[in-house]
C-alpha cells in the first residue's frame, strides 16, 4: 500500500451499538423465523443499481468499499481470515482495503490499476460496484466503469477539499450521462468531524456541479476508517448531520432511465429502439429477430420501421424462450417477429415510425481516447455502434479538455486519457440518438483495424436535433460514402502494418534518367534486387504505351503504399520548369532523380539504333556513370541515398 498513514494500517472493524440490520430478511431466514420462499420472492423483486466508485488510493476508496462490503455482511469468514493474514504479513492491523485488492501485480505495487467489479446486496437493492482508480492517467478506467453506471460515488479528502481531480471526476460522470452523484467527504475524523469544514466543501462542490446536469447530488460526511455514516448514521461524531448514510443514499436514490423523460412529459409516447443482433431462422416457418430493447417497449400490433431499409411492418409476436410475451420492455433480450417478411439483418434497427433516430454520415461526438497509440486523423477506424460496425475517420478535432483545468483547448491529436469534441465522417450513415437523451444508441467505440484494440469511447451529440422525416433519412442512407474519394488507409497505418510484417516501409520513387543504351534498365533491376534483399518492398515500373504522366501516377501510388518504385522510362526532353512540375506531382514523397551519365559514345556502342538524344535532367539528385559497367558501384551509391531517407516509423 502507499505510504499513507490514514489508509493503512486500519483499525479492526468494530460493530457499532444499536446497528440497524440491513439484511433483516436474510437474518430472519437464518433464524428460521421467515420462510425461505418469502425471502426468495422478495429477493427477486430487488432492482439492480450499478455505481462507479472513483477516488485515488489516498482518498481511502479501497477502505470505503471494504467498509461497505464488510458492514453489509458480504465478506465470508475465510475471506476475512485471508485479509487478516495478509494484514499481519504487512505488519498492520486488519486492513479492509485488502478485501478489494485484486491482481498480484497491483498488490505488489499497492495501487489499483484496473476496473474491478464487486457485488453486495441489502434488503432493498442489489449493487454492482465498478471500482476504478481516480488518477488522471486512469481516466480511461473511470470512463469504462462509468459507462454502465447509474450513479457515481466520488471521494473527497476532507483535509484537501475540492481538488482539480474531484472536478474532473464530476465532469467525466456528467460526460458519461450519469444522473446521480454521491459525494463522500471522507476522513472527517482527521478534521475533527467539523461541520463547517463539511459545509464549505459541500457548497463549493454544489456550486461547481450545478451546471453539469445531475438530477441528484448527495454530499455525505464520512470516515471510511471509522465507518462514520457509511452504513450506519454516526450520531456520536456527526450529530449535526441529518442526511442519509452512503448506503441509505444508494438504497433510495431513484434509478434514472432514459425513457423517464417521455414517460413524464407525454405518457404513452414510445421511442422504441431495437438493434437487431441475430436473425433466427430455424425453419421456413419461423423468422425471428433477436435483440435487446435499447429503449421503450414493444407490443404485438405495434407499427415499427426498419432502418436502413426504410420498410415498415407490424409486430406479430414477442418471444422469450418458449413463452410469448404481451410486452417487451426496456433492457430485455427478446425475439420479435413481424407480419411482413421484411428483409432485416444484424446491424439493422427497428424503431418507432413516429420518432426516427438521427441518420447522418457526418456526426459530432465527444471522444475519450483509451489507447497508447495516438489518434491519427488520416486513418480509418472501425466504429462499433449498437450492433453495426462501420468505417469512420476523425475529420476534425474541435477542442480537447485540459487535463487540469478541464477547459477546452486546441489540439492536433489525441493521446491516452484525452477527452475531446470531434467531427467524424462515416462511410455509411449512422442511425443514432443524442447520447444525453439515449445512452445505448448514442454510444460507440472506435477500434483500430490493425491492432484490433478498442482505442476510443464515443458519445454522439446532437442536442437540439429534431427527428428526421423518413424521406430525409432515406436520402442520407442512400448517399455516397461520407469518407470522400481518398485513401482510407493512413500512412501511419501502412507503416504499422509493415512493422507487424517485419518489412521496411520506405515508400519512394527512384527515377533513372539517361540516354538510350546508358544501361539504366540494367541498373533498375539490379537496384530492385539489392533493395529487396535489404528488406524493402520494391518494384520496377516498366511502362508500355504509357505517358509520362500515367507512369508518374503509378509511381506515386506505389510510393504511398510503402513501395520503392524504380522507373527508367525514356526520359523526356523537358525544361527545368517541366521537371519541377513532375517533382511537384510526387509531392512530399521521397524522390530520387538519378542521372545515369553514361557517355554518348558508350551508349551508342550499346544501342546503335538508340533514339534521339535526351536532355539530361537539369538538377538531378545524384549522377552515376555506367561507362565502365560498374553496375554494383552505381547500385551502392543509390542505396546509400535511399538509406538516408528517414524511416517513416
Amino acid at each position, binding site marked *: 500500500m502507499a505510504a499513507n498513514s490514514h489508509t493503512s494500517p486500519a483499525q479492526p472493524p468494530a460493530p457499532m451499538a444499536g446497528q440497524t440490520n440491513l439484511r433483516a430478511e436474510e437474518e430472519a*431466514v*437464518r433464524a428460521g423465523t421467515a420462510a*425461505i*420462499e418469502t425471502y*426468495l420472492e422478495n*429477493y*427477486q*423483486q*430487488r*432492482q*439492480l443499481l450499478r455505481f462507479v466508485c472513483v477516488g485515488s488510493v489516498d482518498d481511502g476508496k479501497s477502505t470505503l468499499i471494504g467498509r461497505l462490503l464488510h458492514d453489509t455482511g458480504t465478506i*465470508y*469468514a*475465510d475471506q476475512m481470515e485471508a485479509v487478516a493474514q495478509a494484514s499481519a504479513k504487512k505488519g498492520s492491523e486488519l486492513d479492509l482495503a485488502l478485501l478489494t*485488492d*485484486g*491482481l*498480484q*501485480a497491483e498488490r505488489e505495487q499497492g495501487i489499483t490499476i*484496473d476496473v474491478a*467489479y*464487486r*457485488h453486495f*446486496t441489502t434488503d432493498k437493492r*442489489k449493487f*454492482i460496484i465498478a471500482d476504478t482508480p481516480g488518477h488522471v492517467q486512469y481516466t480511461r*478506467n473511470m470512463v*469504462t466503469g462509468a*459507462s*454502465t453506471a447509474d450513479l457515481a460515488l466520488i471521494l473527497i479528502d476532507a483535509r484537501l477539499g475540492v481538488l482539480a481531480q474531484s472536478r474532473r471526476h464530476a465532469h467525466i460522470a456528467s460526460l458519461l450521462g450519469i444522473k446521480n452523484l454521491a459525494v463522500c467527504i471522507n476522513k472527517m475524523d482527521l478534521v475533527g468531524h467539523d461541520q463547517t469544514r463539511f459545509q464549505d466543501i459541500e457548497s463549493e462542490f454544489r456550486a461547481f456541479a450545478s451546471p453539469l446536469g445531475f438530477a441528484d447530488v448527495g454530499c455525505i460526511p464520512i470516515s471510511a476508517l471509522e465507518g462514520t455514516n457509511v452504513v450506519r448514521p454516526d450520531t456520536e461524531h456527526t450529530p449535526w448531520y441529518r442526511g442519509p448514510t452512503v448506503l441509505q*443514499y444508494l438504497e433510495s436514490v*431513484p434509478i434514472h432511465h432514459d*425513457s423517464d423523460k417521455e*414517460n*413524464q412529459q407525454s*405518457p404513452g409516447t414510445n421511442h422504441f429502439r431495437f438493434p437487431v*443482433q*441475430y436473425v*433466427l431462422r*430455424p425453419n421456413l416457418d*419461423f423468422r425471428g429477430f433477436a435483440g*435487446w430493447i435499447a429503449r421503450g417497449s414493444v407490443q404485438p400490433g405495434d407499427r415499427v420501421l426498419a432502418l436502413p431499409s426504410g420498410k415498415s411492418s407490424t409486430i406479430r409476436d414477442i418471444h422469450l424462450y418458449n413463452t410469448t410475451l404481451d*410486452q417487451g*420492455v*426496456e*433492457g*430485455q*433480450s427478446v*425475439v420479435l417477429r413481424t407480419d411482413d417478411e421484411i428483409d432485416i439483418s444484424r446491424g439493422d434497427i427497428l424503431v418507432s415510425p413516429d420518432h426516427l433516430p438521427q441518420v447522418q454520415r457526418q456526426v459530432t461526438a465527444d471522444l475519450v481516447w*483509451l489507447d497508447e497509440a495516438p489518434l491519427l486523423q488520416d486513418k480509418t477506424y*472501425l466504429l*462499433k455502434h449498437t450492433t453495426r460496425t462501420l468505417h469512420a475517420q476523425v475529420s476534425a478535432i474541435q477542442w480537447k479538455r485540459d487535463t487540469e483545468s478541464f477547459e477546452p483547448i486546441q489540439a492536433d491529436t489525441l493521446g491516452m486519457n484525452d477527452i475531446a469534441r470531434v467531427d467524424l465522417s462515416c462511410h455509411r450513415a449512422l442511425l443514432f440518438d443524442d447520447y444525453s437523451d439515449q445512452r445505448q444508441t448514442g454510444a*460507440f*467505440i472506435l*477500434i483500430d483495424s490493425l*491492432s*484490433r*484494440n*478498442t482505442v476510443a*469511447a464515443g458519445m454522439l451529440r446532437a442536442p437540439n436535433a429534431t427527428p428526421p422525416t423518413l424521406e430525409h433519412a432515406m436520402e442520407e442512407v442512400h448517399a455516397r460514402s461520407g469518407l470522400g474519394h481518398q485513401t482510407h488507409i493512413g500512412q501511419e497505418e501502412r507503416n504499422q502494418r509493415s512493422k507487424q510484417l517485419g518489412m521496411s516501409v520506405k515508400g519512394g520513387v527512384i527515377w533513372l534518367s539517361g540516354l538510350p543504351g546508358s544501361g539504366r534498365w540494367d541498373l533498375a533491376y539490379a537496384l530492385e534486387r539489392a533493395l529487396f534483399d535489404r528488406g524493402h518492398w520494391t518494384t520496377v515500373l516498366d511502362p508500355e504505351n504509357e505517358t509520362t504522366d500515367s507512369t508518374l501516377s503509378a509511381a506515386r501510388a506505389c510510393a504511398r503504399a510503402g513501395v520503392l518504385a524504380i522507373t527508367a522510362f525514356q526520359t523526356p526532353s523537358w525544361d527545368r520548369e517541366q521537371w519541377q512540375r513532375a517533382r511537384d506531382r510526387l509531392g512530399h514523397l521521397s524522390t530520387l532523380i538519378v542521372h545515369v551519365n553514361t557517355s554518348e559514345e558508350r551508349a551508342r556502342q550499346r544501342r546503335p539504333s538508340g533514339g534521339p538524344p535526351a536532355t539530361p535532367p537539369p538538377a538531378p539528385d545524384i549522377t552515376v556513370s555506367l561507362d565502365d559497367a560498374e553496375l554494383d558501384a552505381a547500385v551502392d551509391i543509390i542505396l546509400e541515398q535511399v538509406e538516408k531517407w528517414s524511416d517513416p516509423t
Partner: protein
Amino acid sequence: MSQPMSQPISPRRLRHLETLEAESIHILREAAATFRNPVMLYSIGKDSSVMLHLARKAFHPAPLPFPLMHVDTLWKFREMIQFREQVAKDPAIRMLVHTNPDGARDNVNPIDHGSAQHTSIMKTQGLLQAMEKYGFDCAFGGARRDEERSRAKERVFSFRDSHQQWDPKNQRPELWNLYNTQLQQGHSVRVFPLSNWTELDVWLYVSLEEIPVVPLYFSAPRPVVKRDGTWIMVDDDRLPLHDGETPEQKSVRFRTLGCYPLSGAVESTATTLPEIIQEMLSTQWSERQGRLIDNDQDASMEQKKKEGYF
C-alpha cells in the same frame, strides 16, 4: 432526495435477475454473431447448467449455433459424467468430450501428481489442445467475478494471444454493452456471460427456471473420508485409503464440483433448492473454499489464468 410529486404511469422495470438474464443473452448472441467458430466450455456444474439454459433462451427455437465441449480429466464424479450424457441426448446440442491423450497415457492423476500438476496437465493443457484441434476462436465459460479476487477484474470478453495466454495488463476496456469482437490473426477470446452473477443469483435462477443440476449439489448419504479438515467422497476404488481410514456414510453435499479427490464436501441436510439457498445464506465460508486447487499458492488463480486455465 425528493420524490416527484406525482408518479406518472411508468412501464415495468426489469428486476435484477431479469437484467442479468437479458445481459447474458445479449453477450451470447453477440459472440455467436461475430466469431467464426465458438464453443461453450461445459464443466457440468451449476454455472454451466445456467449458462446452457441462457444459451437455449438466446437462440430458441433454433438449435445452439455452437457445440458444447467438456474437458474430461477422467477424475470427475461418476454422477457428473452421467449428467453430461443425459444433457448430450438433447438433439439441439452437440457435445464434444476431450481428454489430454498424453496425460491419459501417463496416467496423470491428482493422487500421485498432486492437484497442481494434475490440473495443469489434464485441465489446462487439455483445454488448449482441444481449442487448437477444433480451431475454436471463442470459448464461453461460466466464471463469475464474485468467485475470486483476480476474477473481479476479468473482462466479459477476455482476449488470449496466439499462445492462449492471458495478459492482465493488456486487456481491452469494455464500455457500455459494446463488445469489441475483432480478433487479431491467431488470437482467441474467452467469453464469460455470467460475469455479473453471484452465487446466490445462480441458485435463485436455477430455482426459478427449474434448471436441472447434478444431484451432488443436494445432500445425500455418501461415503466420505476426512482429509485436511474437509470431507472427500470415495467415488470409486481409485482413491487410496490411508492407514486406518474407513469411509463413513455422511449426509453431505458439494458447493462446487470438479475432480472428486479435489472437491471438498460439506455436511448438510439440504435436499431441496430452497434449503440449499437457506444454507448458503447461513454459511460462513465462501464457495471456492471447498476447491483445493485455488490455495496452492498465493494468487494462484491469477497464475493459472496466465497459463491458460479458464
